[in-house]
């Protein structure tokens, strides 16, 4: 316990310290074992070549395995030289190492002097710090983070589902986030549309969302599509994106989005919420079913109330929107099992998830084997178009 209680200047007086230039020469000569006494996420951002990571809490336990020879010359460093001073003291005073020195100033001084470090390529120092909790995951790593940074995701609807999805996708470092919405922030949205704020009531939703995203993560390029998707613009809007997040508040947009995304072969992560329930599935064209395979025709208006008309628990938007964000990240990074061919229902009152199988419909007019190419003006339409035109248009 002496280690934690004693002031650093007392400790510094009884250990050897070397400055960065001396350390560099010793390391170059090759006689010293170099130990990094920081946390794994700091190591991931940048470390000295040839160093071994032994986090501070593990020094007394593990150092004997790493350096069995007590007479070995050892150089220790951390960020600024404080944690490594304590570690050097413990090794010397408690564990019997005879030739230990602390590198004063740590890796921060090392880098200030422009000396080389081992750091992930393709990311800036700020990005290595920002995304370190991602890159620490073997499933993501630097490679996965670079995929996220290079990805382009389109959010259809900057409302209930779009808000949490946009926040977390932005935080995750999705490089380009497109936002489609032609609405303005209303005070009644704020119960669930957490990307907006009270002082932005009356502001276009895409603009309000852009302000929040830019404050959260300057890496994200936000593209505002302040419009309503229709058959004349949908192909143009979708064309440049890798993944589409469907958080639309009406059936016409959902069918339109489906037909266009099948045409462009782009995956759609689709969710909907009502009351205390939500549904989510991923539609990957020709790999799994499409939205029309699952729902060949929309229900009549009286069976399809909007959230505005029927109410929705605000948290439902968060839960389902984040499940969408999670699916997007899996698709972009290429990990896990996507929700293709599966529909997940979340019942928040019972806290129950139900999973249903969704199969490709061999008679699907859009993705079935006999589907005929339809003109762009027909995207999103039905033989009985009038029936779904009665569907709700405002959520």
């Amino acid at each position, binding site marked *: 316990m002496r280690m934690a209680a004693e002031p650093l200047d007392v400790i510094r007086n009884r250990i050897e310290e070397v400055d960065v230039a001396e350390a560099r020469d010793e390391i170059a000569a090759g006689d010293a074992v170099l130990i990094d006494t920081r946390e794994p996420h700091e190591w991931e951002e940048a470390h000295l070549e040839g160093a071994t990571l032994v986090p501070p809490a593990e020094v007394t336990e593990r150092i004997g395995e790493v350096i069995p020879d007590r007479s070995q010359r050892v150089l220790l460093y951390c960020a600024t030289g404080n944690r490594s001073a304590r570690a050097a003291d413990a090794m010397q005073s408690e564990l019997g190492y005879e030739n230990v020195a602390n590198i004063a100033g740590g890796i921060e001084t090392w880098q200030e002097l422009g000396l080389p470090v081992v750091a992930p390529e393709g990311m800036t120092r700020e990005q290595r710090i920002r995304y370190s909790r991602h890159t620490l995951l073997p499933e993501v790593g630097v490679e996965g983070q670079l995929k996220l940074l290079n990805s382009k995701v389109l959010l259809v609807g900057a409302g209930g589902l779009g808000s949490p999805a946009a926040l977390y996708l932005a935080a995750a470092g999705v490089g380009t986030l497109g936002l489609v919405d032609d609405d303005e922030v209303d005070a009644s949205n704020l119960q669930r549309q957490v990307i907006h704020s009270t002082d932005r009531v009356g502001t276009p939703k895409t603009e309000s969302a852009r302000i929040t995203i830019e404050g959260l993560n300057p890496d994200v390029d936000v593209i505002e599509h302040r419009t309503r998707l229709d058959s004349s613009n949908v192909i143009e809007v979708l064309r440049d994106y890798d993944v589409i997040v469907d958080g639309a508040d009406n059936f016409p947009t959902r069918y339109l989005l489906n037909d266009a995304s099948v045409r462009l072969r782009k995956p759609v992560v689709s969710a909907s919420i009502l009351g205390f329930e939500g549904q989510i599935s991923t539609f990957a064209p020709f790999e799994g079913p499409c939205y029309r395979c699952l729902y060949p025709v929309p229900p009549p208006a009286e*069976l399809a109330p909007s959230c505005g008309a029927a109410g929705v628990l605000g948290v439902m938007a968060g839960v389902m929107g984040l499940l969408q964000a999670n699916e997007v990240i899996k698709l972009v990074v290429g990990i896990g099992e996507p929700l293709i061919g599966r*529909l997940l229902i979340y019942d928040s009152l019972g806290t129950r998830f139900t999973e249903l199988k*969704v199969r490709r419909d061999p008679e699907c007019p859009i993705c079935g084997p006999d589907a005929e190419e339809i003109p762009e003006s027909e995207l999103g339409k039905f033989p009985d178009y009038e029936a779904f035109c009665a569907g709700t248009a405002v959520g």
Partner: protein
Amino acid sequence: MPTVKIPPVLRAETGGEAEVDVSGENVGDVLRALVATHPGTEHQLFASDGALNRYVNVYLNDEDVRVLDGLDTRVSGADTVVILPAMAGGA
């Protein structure tokens, strides 16, 4: 007795019940027994010719009855029949 899961849009017709236990040998029987208990569900489930409305999906446990035997799909007491309507709410 099989359990029928009632989606939010139909709960006004079941007195707010999210699950209803009804007897029946097959999916059609079960749904017709539901309609007998809660008549308000009929026009939402069935077309005038007695067929299921195309916009309503019915699952036996996790499988769409369309890939089984439709309304003739046999049901046992431990089964769950899920009524799944499309929902469009996103905002």
